[in-house]
């Protein structure tokens, strides 16, 4: 690809030590009519990249939180067309890189060619299909290339060095580093940061073409700083959805979510906790 996409430009612009923060939000959670406004708030509060979840009835790599958010979204009629519409709305005044994330079956049913065409037309930037690892579905790799959608793949602690290199070659935009072997939302707190460092070093050694974002189990700014010290940034999903779940539909829930996101990224300004020593 000659034209640099939004994701590449985002990482190139990053010069200082500040980490890129990517947020995962299930499209249509907690309410499809609020998604566009919520995304606006997330971006205003420091989100650098948005992973928009395409809800699926059987999300088998997800823990209870994202299962719940998916169910809520589906019950409100969210489907791929309504998600493309949301992206078009978001794009009216935002250039935040948007990565679609979801399971393959709804995409297959939509029609692969149609899906990639619409993804590009609505101006999404990348795609993560957690149940399609590199090499298992060559047609999708071709369609990503053809339509200029960045394919983003995952590496996990049990991924071998040579497989990491293969995943790096198959990915564009960034590589998603799953910090724990588990489903999304796995909480391991301190465990994560302590055991993850050797793994991240291995990722850095093998993933050389793409930036690396680390995710799974990050619930606070301190978590994020602890696990992302050697990556380009971090990803938060379940903690964001849990936070919204706790306050929605109370007064100012969108604004409060913004405050939560700001704290995730910058830490508490008032009561600055020093990172774990």
């Amino acid at each position, binding site marked *: 690809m000659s034209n640099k996409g939004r994701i590449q430009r985002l990482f190139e612009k990053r010069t200082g030590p500040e980490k890129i923060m990517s947020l995962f939000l299930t499209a249509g959670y907690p309410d499809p009519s609020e998604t566009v406004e919520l995304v606006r708030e997330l971006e205003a509060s420091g989100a650098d990249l948005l992973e928009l979840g395409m809800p699926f009835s*059987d999300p*088998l*790599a997800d*823990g209870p939180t994202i*299962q719940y958010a998916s169910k809520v979204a*589906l019950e409100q009629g969210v489907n791929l067309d309504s998600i493309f519409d949301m992206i078009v709305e978001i794009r009216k005044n935002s250039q935040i890189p948007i990565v679609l994330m979801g399971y393959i*079956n709804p995409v297959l049913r*939509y029609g692969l060619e149609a899906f990639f065409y619409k993804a590009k037309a609505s101006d999404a930037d990348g795609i993560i299909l957690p149940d399609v690892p590199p090499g*298992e579905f060559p047609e999708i790799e071709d369609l990503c290339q053809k339509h200029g959608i960045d394919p983003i793949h995952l590496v996990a602690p*049990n991924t071998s060095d040579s497989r990491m290199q293969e995943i790096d070659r198959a990915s564009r935009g960034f590589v998603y580093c799953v910090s724990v072997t588990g489903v999304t939302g796995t909480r391991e707190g301190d465990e994560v940061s302590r055991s993850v460092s050797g793994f991240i070093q291995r990722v850095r050694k093998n993933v050389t073409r793409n930036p690396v974002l680390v995710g799974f189990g990050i619930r606070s700014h301190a978590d994020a700083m602890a696990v992302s010290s050697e990556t380009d940034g971090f990803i938060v999903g379940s903690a964001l959805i849990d936070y919204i779940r706790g306050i929605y539909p109370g007064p100012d829930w969108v604004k409060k979510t913004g405050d939560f996101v700001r704290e995730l990224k910058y830490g508490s300004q008032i009561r600055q906790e020093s990172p774990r020593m």
Partner: protein
Amino acid sequence: MEIEKKPDSRFGSSPDDRGFYGKFGGRYVPEILIPALDDLAGAFFAARKDPAFQQQFASLLHEYVGRETPLTYAGRLSEHFGKARIYLKREDLCHTGAHKINNAIGQVLLARRMGKTRIIAETGAGQHGVATATVCAYFGMTCIIYMGAEDIVRQKLNVDRMRLLGAEVRPVESGAKTLSNAINEAIRDWVSNVGDTFYIIGSAVGPHPYPLMVREFQSVIGKETIDQSLEQEGRLPDHVLACVGGGSNAIGMFHPLLPHENVRLYGIEAAGEGVQTPRHAATLSGGLPGILHGSLSYLLQTQYGQIAEAHSVSAGLDYPGVGPEHSFLRDSGRVTYAAVTDGEALDGVRLLSSKEGIIPALETAHAIAYLNMMMPGTQPDEFVVINCSGRGDKDMETIAKYMKSP
């Protein structure tokens, strides 16, 4: 010679190296499971060639399961239809009461070979759960069974059996609270504990190499049927029937027979309240290709590709997917797939019980019920084999309820 070549005919050699049966199959799973599936395939292909493994598998099937199971002539049932002779392949006589234990033994032996200490499994009707709990008790291994909360109620007897055998039964509360949801939860467990855990899938579904492995361990059914048919009738059967949930008893019966193209094969799915209603589990009759639980196969789904809830009175057939090889066999036309309703299956239970003194599982009863449609077209000089996949003790509550209603 022609006959020697048959097992390599167009149906004999699938799947390919990547686990595809035609376009169906594959390994559509999270990256975390890729190394685990590579290890599993490595161990399986090595074990398959290892005479010591084969010997151990065969002797457990003989001494512990009680194989070979008989091929029983069903005289009064045959008379009832007055057409072809009917035989029953008696998987209901396996230890624990269904074919499921053939596969559970094969996989637990693999798990031990790979040094895995923790066994997980899903179960619908509870037969696979009981079989897995049984082999874990036999080998002294930790065993966790995921089971939909709905199935826990309707197959209570099997829940008690699993607990007595020392397994932990974990209720699954998501979705329709049935087999499909139990598989989701088992996969999530596997993703989280991939280092020490072996997932014993109970049907011919899931990512490669599971469908192949399950077929291999269940093929003993078809191989014995061939030998027994030759011995008892001097030739192969004309028609062979099996019920299809995920498709393990059916593929175990069918696979050795695939090259014998004169043998007509019928896979019977659950039509629930009718294939034209939204409440059925007839994946091959009413579904479309899609990806669930790691492979591409026919699937009950909505227009948006969400998985539809299946329905069947029989917990073991109450699944919106089906093994990928069955999808291949459907499209190739080698096997005929049909579906019978809840009511027809319950009548099938009554028919076999009253004519032969054999109370079949509700799953099996679907194959029995199909006789009503198939037998009129058979000839008196033909013979039919039905895979009697399990016995009906576990279903007595459901059956009794039905008998009370007018």
